[in-house]
């Protein structure tokens, strides 16, 4: 078996490469002729997507579009997913799969691609941003619907409700017949305990924090974003106008995120008016809008060397 040449003058070849004791799988998409020296890492995976193809082949289409324009792309499966080896472990925004992104970047470097754009959605947006400061040659980062919290999957809702519900909301719901009946079910008991724990934890922290309402914003989002700004690296943040995660982002701007954005000026571009929900890419129209936006933004923001 070998590589394949697509009718658009783009060729593709598979690649297995090491990452922290695992072997990851990816597909390299490149122009048939000389490329423009810029590589795009398509980082896939999160709550709604588990293979590097992405939904409706969004990543495949992105890679082939970009390669037809001279870019070299790599889409890859995280450890424990798709064709890669290893065990997945837990999904936690405090621990995005930075090492996998770094290993994929190393593949690009070995192909002679020094300038890189990192692109990811949701959990993978956090992976892209977290990995960016430690990867040589990052020229831009694209994040679709990045969550701003630092929670794990199981804790996400409990954490959000602890911010959005008042104590009286909690009490009102706790005494409902339905809630009381559900106490007989272990999974519900666990969930209720989690809800209570987050609310109590929030209350306990309040007096100690200078900025009590914003403790939920992850420093592991803020620190690398700040680094990007300091280094003058452009970042594109994309939400749909109905994205549930947009509200988090907006609220977080009241704190350090807002300061970073202000300092970054035009470096951090936030597009928050794509119609509908971007998270999960559950519509073909939103996929296509994102694809066009990402391609155009890369063309506009990342300087391209002479063809080589």
């Amino acid at each position, binding site marked *: *078996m*070998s*590589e*394949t040449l*697509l009718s658009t003058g783009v060729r*593709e*070849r*598979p*690649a*297995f*490469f090491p990452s*922290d004791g695992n072997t990851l*799988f990816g597909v390299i998409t490149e122009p048939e002729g000389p490329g423009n020296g810029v590589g795009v890492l398509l980082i896939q*995976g*999160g*709550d*709604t997507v*588990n*293979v590097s*193809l992405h*939904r*409706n*082949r969004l990543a*495949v289409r992105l890679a082939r579009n970009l390669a037809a324009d001279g870019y070299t792309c790599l889409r890859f499966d995280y450890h*424990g*997913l*798709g*064709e890669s*080896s290893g*065990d*997945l*472990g837990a*999904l936690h925004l*405090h*621990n*995005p799969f*930075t*090492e996998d992104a*770094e290993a994929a*970047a*190393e*593949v690009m*470097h*070995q192909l002679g691609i020094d300038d890189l754009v990192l692109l990811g959605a949701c*959990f993978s947006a956090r992976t892209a941003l*977290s990995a960016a*400061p*430690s990867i*040589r040659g990052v020229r831009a980062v694209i994040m679709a619907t990045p969550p701003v919290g630092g929670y794990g*999957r199981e804790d996400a809702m409990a954490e959000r409700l602890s911010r959005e519900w008042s104590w009286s909301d909690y009490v009102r719901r706790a005494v409902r017949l339905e809630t009381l009946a559900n106490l007989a079910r272990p999974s519900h008991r666990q969930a209720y305990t989690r809800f209570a724990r987050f609310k109590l934890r929030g209350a306990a922290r309040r007096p100690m924090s200078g900025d009590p309402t914003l403790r939920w914003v992850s420093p*592991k989002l803020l*620190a*690398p974003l700040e*680094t990007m700004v*300091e280094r003058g690296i452009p970042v594109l943040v994309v939400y749909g106008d109905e994205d549930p995660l947009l509200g988090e982002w907006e609220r977080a701007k009241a704190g350090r995120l807002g300061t970073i954005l202000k300092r970054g000026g035009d470096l951090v571009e936030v597009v928050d008016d794509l119609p509908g929900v971007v998270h*999960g890419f*559950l*519509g*073909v129209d939103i*996929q296509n809008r994102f694809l066009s936006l990402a391609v155009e933004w890369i063309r506009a923001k990342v300087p391209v060397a002479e063809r080589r």
Partner: protein
Amino acid sequence: MDQGEGARRGTTVRTTAVAIRPWRRDPTTGVTEEAGFDDSRFAVLHLPTRPHRAVVLCSPLHAEMQRNYRREVLLSRRLAAEGSAVERFHYRGTGNSAGGPDRLALETMIEDGIAAVRHLQGRVGEVPVAVLGTRVGGLVAAAVAAEVEAAGLALWQPLVKGSAYMREAERAAMARAITNTSGERPPPLREVLVTEGSADVLGERVYAALAASLEEAQLAKLIGEQPRPVLLAQAGGPDGLRGELARLADELATVGFAVTARPTGDAEVWWANPGGDLFREEDDKPLTVELLRVTADWVETL
């Protein structure tokens, strides 16, 4: 390598060269996994040192493909570790393969499946063959197995009638629409396919050519008349096969097929929005464990 999450500044990582290859070898089993393109069809081969069987996997499509992806990888690794050479592939117009998705149809999928069997036989020689298909891939696998002398046929929750695929897709889209903020019901799928030539089902582009090709497809007819060993696995039926699949099993047994029925305890949500379930350790899921076990056991009997 830098272990940090990116908060440390100015760190450059990995200065040593890493191996980039189109294959990997599993050090514990000695199985080689080889990925590449057979013409325009993307495929992955799992090759033990001395294969004594060849197994080809025919995947489902769209959201169902994603749901079953890792399960198929794990099954292939297990079968290869037990001595079977396995080929998985992406139909042309899907996944990593080349080709336009608008030309995808049951016929092209069957062509790809037959090509995969020939390709694998070219690598491992004359050994017993089995073909496995899941959901719509079950229709493909049945037709492919019918083309191969004495090939075994394993079916995971297959569609007994091709028309069910679009019906289930539409149902999933409806269910999703109910939870949308707008609450707007999507127009009937058939209508959209006629007027637009394609439809958006939960973010998956489904084309009219595929729908048309599935409309009249029936598993019983595609299996052919030559009796062969058949494994029927149904998710979510601990007390035995149910409905159309139970009737199919009876019909096949009546005409001399060696049918092994394996209902499994857990149901599977195939089309609907996967929610958080995709990003979990696949081999921790009871359904996956059970499907892998019954299939590996059945393959051993061939």
